[in-house]
């Protein structure tokens, strides 16, 4: 395989992985605090449509990303209120959030369908982004560097800071955390909001990084793959990075197999398109065969917290 093609594949793979990585990182923090938010897909769709709309109207992708993160955090608060303050079933509420995000984005995005924006490309000077070798490091959207930064930021926060320790304590043993004076509900509100912001930004990657337009259901189930990735990573941010890039590679194979034709034609394009979903199932199987999932999952995951006083 020649070097140009390899570099091209790497760049595409990194781009395809970034929305997954961002959304999954957010969900990882949410789950570490003991909350299971299945609404990632809905929050991503919300972020995607708001990010597109703001970028299209203002011409400024930075504003688009900010707005997408804000919108994601806003809709996640519906989930937080229902599950944390009213103790609603987390599985059902997460599903409702996904249905809501799909409806909202379809309605809000209707007037933007078919309109073009510019992809949010690398901000490095041309001699770096067009260099045949160095572009593998520099020809990426700022969103890609942001996602990599967040892997280390989340990892540092969870394992090296006091606030991270509190968040993990809330997820592992909510009643103990409560009894030594930490507000379980406040910590979880914060975590859900962070997860919403990250999913929103992850959603904005679709129009800004991958396909510079809005169509209904743009995220195509990637939010659910992000959820599976969190399980795959055993709730470790660095392993999440590897998982996201593996899925990005699978998605990239579809693109290149279609373009390459030849021997790849034997496999129908629909099968390539199914691969990320089938791979998700395979990964879930492999994890559960290797070790009991319950050993690494936060102990309070999905259980409501009702304070006794």
């Amino acid at each position, binding site marked *: 395989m020649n070097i140009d093609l390899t570099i091209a594949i790497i760049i595409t793979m990194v781009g395809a992985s970034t929305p997954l990585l961002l959304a999954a990182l957010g969900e990882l923090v949410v789950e570490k605090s003991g909350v299971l938010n299945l609404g990632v897909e809905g929050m991503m769709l919300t972020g995607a449509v708001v990010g597109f709309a703001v970028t299209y109207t203002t011409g400024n992708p930075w504003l688009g990303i900010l707005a997408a993160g804000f919108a994601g955090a806003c809709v996640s608060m519906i989930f937080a209120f*229902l599950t944390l303050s*009213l103790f609603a079933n987390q599985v059902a509420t997460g599903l409702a959030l996904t249905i809501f995000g799909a409806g909202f984005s*379809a309605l809000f995005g209707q007037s933007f369908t078919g309109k073009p924006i510019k992809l949010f490309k690398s901000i490095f000077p041309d001699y770096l982004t067009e260099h045949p070798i160095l572009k593998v490091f520099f020809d990426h959207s700022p969103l890609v560097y942001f996602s990599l930064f967040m892997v280390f930021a989340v990892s540092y926060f969870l394992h090296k800071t006091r606030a991270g320790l509190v968040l993990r304590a809330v997820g592992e043993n909510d009643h103990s955390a409560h009894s030594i004076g930490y507000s379980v509900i406040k910590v979880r509100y914060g975590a859900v909001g962070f997860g919403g912001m990250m999913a929103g930004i992850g959603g904005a990657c679709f129009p800004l990084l991958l396909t510079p337009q809005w169509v209904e259901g743009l995220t195509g189930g990637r939010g659910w793959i992000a959820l599976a990735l969190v399980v795959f990573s055993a709730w470790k941010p660095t392993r999440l990075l590897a998982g996201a890039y593996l899925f990005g590679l699978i998605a990239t194979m579809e693109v290149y197999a279609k373009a390459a034709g030849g021997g790849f034609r034997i496999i129908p394009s629909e*099968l390539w398109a*199914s691969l990320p*979903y089938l791979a998700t*199932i395979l990964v*879930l199987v492999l994890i*559960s065969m290797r070790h009991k999932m319950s050993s690494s999952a936060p102990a309070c995951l999905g259980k409501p917290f009702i304070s006794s006083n």
Partner: protein
Amino acid sequence: MQIRFEKKLEPSRKMLFATPILVVVLTMILGAIVFSILGYDGLGAVREIFLTPLTNSLKWQDLAVKAAPLIIIGVGLSIGYRANVWNIGAEGQYIAGGLAATGMALLTHNMSGWYLLPLMGVAGMLGGMAWVFLPALLRTKLKVNEILTSLMLTYVAIQLLNYLIFGPWKSPTAFGQPQTVLFNDWQILPYIIKGTIVQAGAPIAVLIAIMAWIIMSKSVFGFQVRTVGSAPNAARYGGFSENKTIWLVLLISGGLAGLAGMLEVAGPFNRMVPQFPTSYGFTAIIVAFLGRLHPIGVLIAGVVLAITFVGGEIAQTTIGLPNAAVGLFQAMMLFLLLAGDVLVRYNIKIVRARRA
């Protein structure tokens, strides 16, 4: 002053049945406000979506057509949810059922006889069950979460549908359109009322809901499902196998979703087309919850959601409301219902704050 929640010893039955009604009314009020803020005719939207389908008798047959698949899928899902088994890939099982029925129809296309439709029905159910087989196997053997696996397979089902109708099943006479041939007269559901569009799907849906009600309330199986869902330890102690229950409820929900797929493809569609995935499988989740996971409740909830679908189409033509608005209304309904659950399960008390 602060608000305190105290868990009730038993869920309030009065609230259990009152909240869904309250929720529909609240959705209408909140919907009117939200859509007015969004710059649409909010009151008009609520009138067209929730009331016109009921007052305009010409629309009643549309309600029956739309409610049937929602009820059939919803009944199956509600049985699973009762047992704490979260099949959310009913859309995929619905598509797989439709495809299996189509396969049977194509195989028997030059035959005739009353038995063709039952054959297609069996194929549809088996198709739906096949699509839930892997999630059931993985959940019972390896404890793999069925939420993600059943949902992932939905996307695979859509790809399979595309592959078949763009490829091997494409009709040679459709001028390049990606669709199968029209089914023959013996493969299309009969109309039960002459001069309307109501086909056999509607009475089958009612029958299934009633049968499920009897089975769930009178049989040991119904008791087993409820016990595994609400008290897994007691169920184990009582000798109910959890894995067997999971298998049964998943096969039932998959089979019913597959049957709904068959009734749709042999009913309103008459052939397999790319527009077949109509997200009935996802909407049926709302139906199951709004119906309080009770078969008769699901029957009523199916009609309510059908009203919003039919009403959405009316509102599109009369006041230019985008079709996506319906999804927003449905999501609001589910949010309000989940919020209302707090009234069912908790006593809410307002107490004076005490200094700790």
